[in-house]
């Protein structure tokens, strides 16, 4: 997918002015966090399971080469094929080659963030193969030619009215004056449109929530059942997954599953959790004849072992998005690439570079909620801080902010001078603003005063007040 992360500031301004998006995002912030809280409260072991989930991934990442080779050996023994791909282009070519060999005209597809990352739909379309998104949310945004705005709720930014308009516009064979008021009617219409596509598809393309080294299985977690129709009806099943998705055993996958849905939607378990292990067996009445796993690196090995290593524990539950004040204000599209929210702000610069995505680590209030709810206990705020530090070190921030930070650092390392300068500044501001009680404009403070007034300081610094209070307390 082409990135617009570089224009995050403009994207965010546009998002903030979009009333429909406001409504959609306020629904999100009421829904998911409360459901997660309830699900966590229902399971006394929830936090202990999060610790274990973190430990499993730490172990896997420390032995990643071993587990990937073990996974590949199992898949091969089952009669499947693993395709190793360094880049999105290699992965797209691998999928296309499989589709061509199968003589595919249509490919059904269940939701996959890796699919978005490598832009597989555009690639297939360009080569005359029709990709059909089957997850309801993904189907809607495919019709609208939009990227997903949330990892697990891709059409979260749309109202039912917008969806109805899209269906009326795209499903031209249906009566133009039909009623599309009810969400149920919209669902039935999409279900009807997709039914025949499922059955006619030549290749089924899915993502994977995990890969299991022990058994060569791929794990799929969904609620609609579209992924299960996607892999069980066509002749060929292709799984696209990034390499950090591997876990050792069925038992390890189970532990992670216990925290995944609870963190994501607040369900104890998603409706359909599927373990696919190779192609059809002798005597099976259904299932694919071919099983392929397209294994993608795309920048992950660069993150391994370094400062952003822990980001590779992410299981894409979306909890950090649902709890992020910045995400809840601007939505997913503003981030400008496949991922969004705190996990996106850490991952995107790692995958497409700090030059393109440098704004994202700065789009944070450091409130810490993301780390608090992360089932894999990823230290997201400290990694956002690392990106900011790198930005500063590599001189990728503006000259003004570098000079400002340099000045501040100079003062901060000289406490006496710092106190003096601050005390002086505050005394002057206090005097100047006494009459009004606020400033409508301040030199170098335009970013603040452009949107709100700056209150007049009360004449003394916090530190001096603190000192006085403490000595007062001792009296």
């Amino acid at each position, binding site marked *: 997918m082409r990135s617009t992360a570089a224009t995050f500031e403009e994207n965010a301004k546009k998002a903030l002015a979009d009333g429909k998006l406001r409504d959609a995002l306020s629904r999100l912030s009421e829904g998911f966090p409360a459901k997660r809280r309830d699900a966590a409260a229902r399971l006394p072991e929830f936090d202990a399971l999060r610790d274990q989930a973190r430990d499993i991934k*730490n*172990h896997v990442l420390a032995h990643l080469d071993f587990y990937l080779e073990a996974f590949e050996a199992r898949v091969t023994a089952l009669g499947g094929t693993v395709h190793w791909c360094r880049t999105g282009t290699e992965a797209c070519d691998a999928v296309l080659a499989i589709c061509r060999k199968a003589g595919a005209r249509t490919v059904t597809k269940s939701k996959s963030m890796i699919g978005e990352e490598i832009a597989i739909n555009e690639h297939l379309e360009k080569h005359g193969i029709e990709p059909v998104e089957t997850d*309801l949310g993904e189907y809607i945004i495919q019709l609208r030619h939009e990227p997903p705005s949330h990892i697990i709720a891709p059409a979260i930014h749309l109202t039912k009215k917008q969806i109805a308009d899209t269906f009326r516009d795209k499903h031209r064979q249906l009566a133009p004056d039909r009623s599309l008021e009810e969400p149920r009617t919209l669902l039935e219409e999409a279900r009807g449109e997709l039914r025949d596509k499922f059955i006619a598809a030549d290749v089924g393309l899915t993502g994977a929530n995990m890969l299991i080294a022990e*058994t060569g299985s791929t794990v799929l977690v969904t609620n609609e*059942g*579209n992924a299960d129709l996607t892999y069980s009806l066509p002749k060929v099943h292709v799984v696209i997954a990034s390499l950090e998705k591997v876990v050792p055993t069925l*038992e390890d996958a*189970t532990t992670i599953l216990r925290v995944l849905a609870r963190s994501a939607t607040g369900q104890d378990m998603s409706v359909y959790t599927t373990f696919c*292990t190779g192609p059809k067996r002798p*005597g099976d009445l259904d299932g694919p004849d071919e099983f392929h796993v397209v294994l993608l690196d795309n920048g992950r090995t660069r993150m391994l072992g370094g400062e952003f290593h822990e980001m590779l524990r992410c299981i894409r539950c979306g909890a950090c998005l649902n709890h992020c004040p910045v995400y809840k204000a601007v939505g997913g599209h503003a981030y400008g690439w496949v991922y969004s929210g705190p996990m996106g702000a850490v991952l995107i610069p790692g995958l497409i570079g700090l030059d393109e995505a440098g704004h994202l680590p700065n789009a944070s209030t450091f409130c810490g909620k993301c780390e608090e709810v992360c089932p894999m206990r990823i230290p997201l705020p400290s990694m956002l801080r690392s990106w900011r530090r790198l930005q500063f070190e590599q001189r990728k921030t503006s000259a003004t902010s570098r000079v400002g930070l340099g000045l501040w650092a100079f003062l901060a390392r000289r406490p006496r001078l710092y106190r003096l300068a601050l005390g002086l500044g505050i005394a002057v501001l206090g005097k100047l603003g006494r009459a009004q009680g606020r400033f409508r404009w301040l030199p170098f403070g335009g970013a603040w005063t452009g949107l709100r007034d700056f209150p007049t300081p009360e004449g003394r610094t916090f530190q001096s007040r603190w000192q006085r209070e403490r000595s007062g307390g001792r009296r």
Partner: protein
Amino acid sequence: MSDPRAHILGAIKDALRHARLPESARPNNDESPAERLGDHRANLIPARGKLGSKARIDLFIREAERVNATVARVSGLGGVPREVARYLSKNNLPTTLKIAPAVAEPVIPWTTQTLLTVEQGRAKGSDTVGVSRAFAGVAETGTLVMLSGPGNPTTLNFLPPTHVVVIAAADIAGDYEEVWARIRKAGAGGGKGFMPRAVNWITGPSRTADIEQMLLLGAHGPQRLHIVIADDEIPRP
């Protein structure tokens, strides 16, 4: 340029050799990966499912109903046809069934219900009611565990809008780990290891909240999931 596989594995080995990880990223023991694969030991299992058989079945039913499944109990497999006929007529549903070979005659005496038309095999787009047999249930979350195989086509779980699942009470386990242990023993992999092509955990009927976060049942999979528990059946091998 080396081939992608060698390149990726080389990059991983290189990164791990030079890794400088903070405490929070380090493995908490030096267990070897080969050992871990061989032992496949269970991690923490929540206490919730660790119950005696009666309480376990009750929890299974409660959890399944919480996620919008319906549950009925019959004394044995012989009682299944009558329950299925009752359920379908009560909900005004078609009475033609597509059933899995695993629940065909003589396992279940369908001919005792003349109201029902029964056909065996994989699901087609036009089928309205699918009937299959669960390998196990998990009380912890009211989850059904379905194994693919000649007796249980996967498509029956997903294509028909109504799914009826038959399960023996004795097959209801407390937690998932117990079921993995049974699957490791069952040999349902058709000669390719212990895993069948598809293991499907099913927790309630299909749903979506993609339109304004409103919960709707029956997105692509079945809108109705009816679980029939046969009490006196012996557990599956």
